[in-house]
């Protein structure tokens, strides 16, 4: 089972600390390629990557496409919609079809948590999870880890504060796993209604996390602050009184940033609601690593594709 699950990238929990560090290391090499004047290497020539997106996405999809193309793979993009009338029959048959056209890897985003696991169980082709419901977004987490590691030189013992919609955030879940594996101290902050009940009751299955609903207290001593995107529909489902109240209490502003360590940096997985979970000044200010995250995302995804598609052969990255 372990080796079966290792064939895929379903969540960051399938990697050990050493394996994560190896990917971060490889990402550094990929970053060098990305910064070349002619950014193309033949590493994945003859490989076919299929992106299968059941949810709208711009940044993750183009990031994968760019990563694949730089490595000389052929990329096929499928954007479709989950239809409840198909009851998943199409999902099973779609993956079998993609397998039959001899795809070498399938990158899936799906609104249902666990959908990549279902695919992995039914597919010979390696699966990369590009976001499944509220469950996981491992490549986002790896790029966040790379960004933090690149900036701070370490992750061990850093104080990371995640703010906002933890309940529905796949980025938060994967980052909690990845950051705790690398030894960070994680503080979750936000309204109780957007924090899973079991976190509040300390019955959760995660390590190295604490909860603090006051943002001012939470950011004290923070090395990294990661606001999460607030979805508008949280208001109608009763999770939030209104967005104004939310931003008054939990928006990352310059005042909040000034309470953290002077070296503090800000990450955001995007897309941002500027003025709600993060102020424009912070988003575009000197402490923001948000644009770096996007560039790093390409390098990290190159490293992931490389390790999954070319694991056996020697790394050939020369021009």
């Amino acid at each position, binding site marked *: *089972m*372990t080796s*079966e*699950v290792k064939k895929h990238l*379903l*969540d960051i*929990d*399938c990697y050990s600390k050493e394996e994560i560090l190896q990917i971060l290391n490889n990402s550094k090499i990929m970053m060098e390629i990305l910064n070349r004047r002619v950014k193309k290497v033949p590493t994945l020539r003859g490989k076919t990557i299929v992106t299968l997106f059941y949810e709208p996405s711009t940044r993750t999809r183009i990031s994968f496409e760019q990563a694949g193309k730089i490595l000389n793979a052929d990329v096929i993009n499928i954007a479709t919609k989950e239809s*409840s009338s198909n*009851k*998943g*029959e199409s*999902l*099973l048959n779609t993956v079998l079809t993609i397998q039959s056209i001899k795809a070498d890897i399938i990158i899936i985003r*799906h*609104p*249902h*948590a*666990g*959908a990549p*696991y*279902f695919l*992995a*169980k*039914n597919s010979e082709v390696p699966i990369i999870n590009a976001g*499944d*419901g*509220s*469950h*996981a977004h491992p490549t986002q987490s790896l790029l966040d880890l790379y960004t933090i590691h690149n900036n701070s030189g370490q992750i061990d013992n850093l104080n990371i504060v995640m703010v906002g919609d933890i309940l529905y955030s*796949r980025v938060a*879940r994967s980052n909690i796993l990845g950051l705790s594996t690398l030894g960070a101290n994680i503080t979750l902050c936000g309204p109780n209604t957007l924090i*899973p*009940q*079991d*976190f509040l009751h300390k*019955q*959760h*299955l*995660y390590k190295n996390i604490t909860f603090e609903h006051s943002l001012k207290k939470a950011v004290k001593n923070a090395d990294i602050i990661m606001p999460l995107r607030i979805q508008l529909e949280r208001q109608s489902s009763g999770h939030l009184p209104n967005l104004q109240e939310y931003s008054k209490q939990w928006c990352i502003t310059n005042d909040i940033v000034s309470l953290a360590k002077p070296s503090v940096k800000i990450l955001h997985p995007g897309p941002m609601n500027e003025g709600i979970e993060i102020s424009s000044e912070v988003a575009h200010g000197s402490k923001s690593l948000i644009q770096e995250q996007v560039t790093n995302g390409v390098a990290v995804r190159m490293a992931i594709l490389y390790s999954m598609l070319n694991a056996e052969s020697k790394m050939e990255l020369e021009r």
Partner: protein
Amino acid sequence: MNIKPILIKNGRLIDPTQNLDSNKDILIENGLISKIGNNLIHSTAHKINAKGLIVSPGFIDLHCHLRDPGYESSETIKTGTAAAAAGGYTTICAMPNTNPPMDSKIAIKYVQEESKKNGYVNVLTIGAITKNRDGKELTPMVELAELGVVGFSDDGNPVYDANIMRQALNYSTITNTPIINHCEVLELSKGGLINEGPISTRLGVKGIPWAAESIMAYRDIQLSKLTGGKLHIAHVSTKATLDIIKDAKESGINVTCEVTPHHITLTENILLGKDKSGSEFTSLNLNSYDTNAKVKPPLRNITDVEAMINGIKNGVIDFIATDHAPHKFLSKNTTLENAEFGISNIETALSSALSLFHNSQISLDLIIEKLSSSPAKFLNTSDIGNLKKGSKADITIFDPNKIWTVNYNEFYSKGKNTPINGYKMKGKVIFTIVSGKIKFENSKIYD
């Protein structure tokens, strides 16, 4: 009747209704139990050597889904009753969430006649509480009761409107027929796939909080007190619900309840991909998100499972009912969110229950009581559910120690949706005798 007599030799007879637990022979003639004793002889009878086996009153399932009429690709009366026979059940009660639903004389008659024609075991019917099971208008309950309906339920749906529930409980007292409710506060369970807690958080799926069940159970108990109606709470799954039922029973309210085999043996941890305690868990794997473990009410945590086992021991739980819910292949071979709720379990129910005997939590006679005589008591009948002379020869013979492995390909049920496929079980049905006829013997079904 022209049935060959059967003589069951040397079995260990267990009948909780007469505190019987001893090695005796049992003779069946004309579909009835005609003699019980030592060293019985009969020259022409078909002989069954039951040495080392338990001879029990035939099991009675108060809650199963036969899907017929309307959903025959999931199950039919023929396949469902074959599965029941394989599971040691001699009488089963069909829930009315068929298409059309069993809310009218004609639908009830169809199930009754089809069962007589093609059923391997006895099928009793449960009528819908409301027309179309949509919770708005009562069905002709007196007419349906006269046809032999043994209870009313909108199972699959709760009776949502408190006033309709009140009227149903009140009206049902005319025929003294129980009202069986599936307790679920829909606003709380909406979008939920599994139990709410550390597992649902870890999997990133919406959970169903425990309170969704107990809140409605409490409402129904109050309405039973108000009306005097006979209330039965289906598939109890939380400690909170059981605590409420215990208090109600102690204050004399007319309430009973059941538990399923899965809610006494499995926890939500199975959704992580292994059935271990949460704290030892490290990472998800390809067995995570098993759609076959998606069921309503959801599999709960170990505290709830322990409460269920205690409820059996202290009598708060009246009996075990399967809630056998077969589904077709595509209904489960999809994402957890798209998959239907339900477990196909009538063929594994005894073995699951026996695991509690083998780990010394529940005695063998108590398990037999909860599978046979207690359901008979609920049905208000003394013809079945016991091994008394003159009773109907509905008998289950099982080997409590036989080791076998669950393989859904061997199920008689069309529903292959079991979360315990590949599990090693201890204890298996060897014979199922219905009205003096062998319907199941060593994995074979007989007409």
